């Protein structure tokens, strides 16, 4: 059991433990997102050439995130933490709708339905953890609630099946990409802040 100094009021989870748990959770969320994308791709996207159309970007493209090691290492850790928060917040709404809309896909397998619900839940849990970490690293700074609005719900409900399936494909492709970014940035931040860049 965590040893809280007797009489101490504020016995708390250390920053190192918070990062350990956040990284384990971001790893799990990306693992699920990848599996969900692969399953959807195999079952619904074969031969439809969706990848060629998926290049028009994700709803989080407005959040300028580092795209190589040098950029990721040059950005200040507080800015990177806030970026991670921004990307996570940007996914709250689409994940909520994904859980309901996925059930309307023809013969959507349980494995996809379960993953959509699990990711939505774990994403909220990771957001809670990141707010705790940011609160610890930047006490007092309420931080600007940066996030990117999602307006993709109508496209998930289109009558034309091909367009609707492409909308799902693009959303899952973006979820796989963004959850990988978050996982990568958190592993970087953990090494930098907890292990002095010597993981």
């Amino acid at each position, binding site marked *: *059991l965590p040893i*809280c100094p007797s009489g101490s009021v*504020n*016995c708390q*989870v250390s920053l190192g433990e918070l990062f350990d*748990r956040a990284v*384990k959770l971001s790893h*799990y969320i990306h693992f*699920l997102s990848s599996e969900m994308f692969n399953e959807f791709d195999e079952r619904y996207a074969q031969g439809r050439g969706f990848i060629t159309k998926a290049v028009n970007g994700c709803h989080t493209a407005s959040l300028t995130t580092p795209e190589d090691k040098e950029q990721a290492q040059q950005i200040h850790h507080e800015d990177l933490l806030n970026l991670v928060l921004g990307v996570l917040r940007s996914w709250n709404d689409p994940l909520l709708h994904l859980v309901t809309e996925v059930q309307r896909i023809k013969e959507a397998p349980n494995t996809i339905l379960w993953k959509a619900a699990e990711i939505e839940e774990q994403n909220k849990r990771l957001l809670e953890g990141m707010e*705790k970490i940011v609160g610890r690293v930047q006490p007092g700074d309420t931080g600007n609630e940066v996030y990117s609005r999602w307006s993709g719900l109508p496209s998930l409900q289109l009558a034309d099946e091909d367009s609707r399936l492409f909308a799902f494909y693009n959303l899952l492709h973006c979820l796989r990409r963004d959850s990988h970014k978050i996982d990568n940035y958190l592993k970087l931040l953990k090494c930098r802040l907890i292990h002095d860049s010597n993981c």
Partner: protein
Amino acid sequence: QSAPGKPEIMRCRSPEKETFTCWWKPGSDGGLPTNYTLNYYKEGEELINECPDYKTAGPNSCYFNKKHTSLWTIYNITVKATNRMGSSISDPHYVDVTYIVQPDPPMNVIPAVGIQDGKPYLLVKWSPPPLADVRSGWLTLIYELRLKTEGEEWETFLVGQQTQYKIFSLNPGNKYIVQIHCKPDHHGAWSEWSQEKYIQLPSDFRMKDL
């Protein structure tokens, strides 16, 4: 008749890092009908909350479902006993959910006999308990295997993350008992041992026996 004695929070456990339960032992009831309330607050918060569910986990318990379970904070939990003559409060019990994970036992334990370089060995296979996804590393489990012949001492093997294990240097003709248990790789407690499984090693080994 008197005020109730001090209750004691005995144990809290999470089976899969997603929910948890705490149990307490009542003190003396002072000869009067006594009721118990569990209160908790989270690290850095002023708000005092009451137990969300006294029923699910049976008497003298409080069950925290997913919505009430946070991985990011330490819970400060107390139990208060109250009767007509007064009340008394337990010592605070601190809970960090990651530290109280005790998984359910492994399943489908299957021992089989094999032969390598002419020597017999026991190959035991099993599967993890059916709980949060272990494949992805969200909950990494390590295993221990124990083995003995009837009436002997157990011999224990630390297996690591594998879900199978080979045991050499066995005595042909013996009947062995095998059990496995598991634990999260960092914090938490060993599960109960799995059901006992028996395997009889043939007395003399010729290839055709297998």
